[in-house]
C-alpha cells in the first residue's frame, strides 16, 4: 500500500500538468454559438475543416512564428554549439567571464531581456519587425544551446579523435567523421529546445515585435474578445507535431544505441 503512494502521486501531478492541454484539445471540437468558447455546446469537426480559411491574420501570425523559429534555431544552434565546443575542448583565458555571459541571460527575467532590447532599439532608432524579433530569439536561445550541447560533449572520449588523427585524418575530416556524429544527438536536442522556446515565446516577442504579430501575440490579442476554436485546433496540431518530432528523436537515439552495441570484430 505504502509503496503505491509515490507512483499514484506522480500520476496525479502528470494529470495536473495535462489538464489545461486536454481542455484545449477538447474545446477545439466545440460547436460553439457566439464568440466565447467557454461552455460545451456539441461536437463538430468544423474548426478542423476550416482551420486556415477563417482568420487570415491568424495564418500570417503562424507563418511569422515559424519563420522566426526556424531562423533563430539555425543561427542559435550554430553559435551555441561553437561556444560549447570551445568550452569543452580547448584551454583558453577568459573562461570565467564567458561562463557569466552564458549564465546571465538564463538568470535574467524575460521581461528585463525584452525591455532592455526595446530600450536599445528605441535609442538606436531601429523600427521593430520580424528582424528584431529574430535577433532577440537568437540572443535568448544561445545560452540554452550552450548548456545543452556542453552537457553532451563533456561526456565524450577525446581518445576517439586522437585515434582518427593517428590514422592520418586531418582536423576537418576528424571533425566531420568523428566529432560531429558523436555530438549530433546533443546538437539536435539543443535545436529542438531552441525551436520550442522560440515558437512559444511571448514576453520578449511582445517587446520586440512592434506591429508584427506572432502566433502567441495573436492568441493574446484574441483572448480579450474571445479565443476562436481555431486556436485550440492549432495548439493541438503543434502539440501533435512536437510529439512526432520527439518520437523521431527517440528512434534515432535508440538506433544509435543499437549501432554502438554491435560487437566489434573478434
Amino acid at each position, binding site marked *: 500500500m505504502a509503496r503505491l503512494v509515490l507512483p499514484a502521486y506522480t500520476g496525479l501531478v502528470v494529470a495536473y500538468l495535462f489538464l489545461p492541454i486536454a481542455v484545449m484539445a477538447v474545446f477545439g471540437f466545440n460547436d460553439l454559438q457566439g464568440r466565447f468558447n467557454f461552455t460545451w455546446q456539441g461536437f463538430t469537426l468544423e474548426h478542423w475543416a476550416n482551420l486556415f480559411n477563417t482568420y487570415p491574420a491568424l495564418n500570417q501570425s503562424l507563418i511569422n512564428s515559424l519563420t522566426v523559429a526556424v531562423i533563430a534555431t539555425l543561427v542559435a544552434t550554430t553559435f551555441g554549439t561553437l561556444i560549447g565546443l570551445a568550452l569543452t575542448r580547448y584551454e583558453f583565458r577568459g573562461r570565467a567571464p564567458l561562463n557569466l*555571459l552564458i549564465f546571465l541571460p538564463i538568470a535574467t527575467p524575460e521581461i528585463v531581456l525584452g*525591455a532592455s532590447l526595446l530600450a536599445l532599439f528605441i535609442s538606436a532608432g531601429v523600427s521593430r519587425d520580424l528582424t528584431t524579433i529574430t535577433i532577440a530569439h537568437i540572443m535568448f536561445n544561445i545560452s540554452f544551446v550552450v548548456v545543452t550541447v556542453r552537457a553532451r560533449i563533456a561526456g565524450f572520449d577525446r581518445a576517439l579523435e586522437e585515434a582518427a588523427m593517428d590514422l592520418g585524418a586531418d582536423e576537418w575530416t576528424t571533425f566531420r567523421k568523428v566529432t560531429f556524429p558523436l555530438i549530433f544527438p546533443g546538437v539536435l536536442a539543443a535545436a529542438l529546445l531552441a525551436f520550442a522556446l522560440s515558437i512559444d515565446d511571448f514576453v520578449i516577442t511582445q517587446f520586440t515585435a512592434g506591429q508584427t504579430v506572432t502566433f502567441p501575440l495573436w492568441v493574446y490579442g484574441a483572448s480579450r474578445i474571445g479565443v476562436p476554436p481555431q486556436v485550440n485546433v492549432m495548439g493541438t496540431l503543434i502539440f501533435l507535431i512536437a510529439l512526432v518530432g520527439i518520437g523521431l528523436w527517440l528512434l534515432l537515439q535508440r538506433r544509435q544505441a543499437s549501432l554502438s552495441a554491435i560487437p566489434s570484430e573478434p
Partner: protein
Amino acid sequence: MSNWLRRHRGLVPYLFLVPGGLWLILFFVVPLITTASVALQEGSLGTGYRLTFNFGIFAESIARWDTQLLRSLQFGLIVTVLAMLIGYPMAYTIAFRGGRYKSILLLLVIMPFFTSFIIRTISWKFILADQGFVLGTLKDLGILEPGFRLLATPVAVISGITYNFLPFVVLPLYVALERIDPRLIEAATDLYASRLQAFLRVTLPLSIPGVFAASLLSFIPAVGDYLNAELLGSRNETMIGNVIQRLYLVNNDYPQAAALSLILMLGIVVSVFIYRRMLHGQELTV
C-alpha cells in the same frame, strides 16, 4: 588557412567564441547598458530625452511601486516553495522508482511545453472560471457558496505561475537525485537510520545542488511574470512585470520603466547571491 590555424592553435577557441559571444554582448550586455542610461535620462517622447544622471529615479520608483515590488517577491517565494513541494516527490519517484519508465516520465514532464504558454494560461482561466465546469458544478451541488471565486484572486495567479514553472523544478531535481548512489541510502539504513532519517541526512543534503538550480529556475521567471497576473488576476494582483510592461508599451514612460527593470534585475541577482550563501556556495551553472 589550415596551415595558418596550425601555427596559431591558441586562436581556435576564440574563433569559435566570436559569433555567439559577440551576439550576446551586442544584444544582451549593450541593451542593459542602454537601459541604465535611459533610466538616468529625463524628458518625454514629445520633447526628447536628455541624460541628466537622475539617480533619484531609483528611490522614486521603489517608493512609487513598492506594493507591486513586494508582491512580486512574495508571489515568487510562494511559487518556488509550492513548486518544490509538488515537484520534489515527483522527481524523487522518477529518479528512484522510475525503472524503465524513466525517460517516458521525464518526457511527460516536459510535454506541456509543446503547447503554447499562453494557450495553457487561457485554459486555466477557463477551468477556474466562476461558472466554469469545475466551480459551476461544485456550486450546483451546493459544496461551494454561490459567491465563491478563484479567478481574480491571488490563489489563481499563484497557481497559474506554479503550474507554468513546475517542469523547470522537476528536471534539475531529477538530475541531482539521479546522481545519488543508492548504496549510500542502503548504508544509512544498514546503520539503523529510519527511512525518514536516511532521507533527511543523506538524500536531501545530496540533492541540494538540484534544489538550488530548481529554485532559481522557478523564482526568477515567477518574479518577472506578468501574463498570469494579467489573465488570471485583477488589479489587486498586479505584479512588477505588469507595471514595466505598461510603462514601456502603453505609457511610453521609458526612464521609469528602465529604472524598474534594473531594480528587478538587481533584486534578483542580490537574492540569488544571498541564497547561494545560505546553501554554502553552490556553483552558478545551470
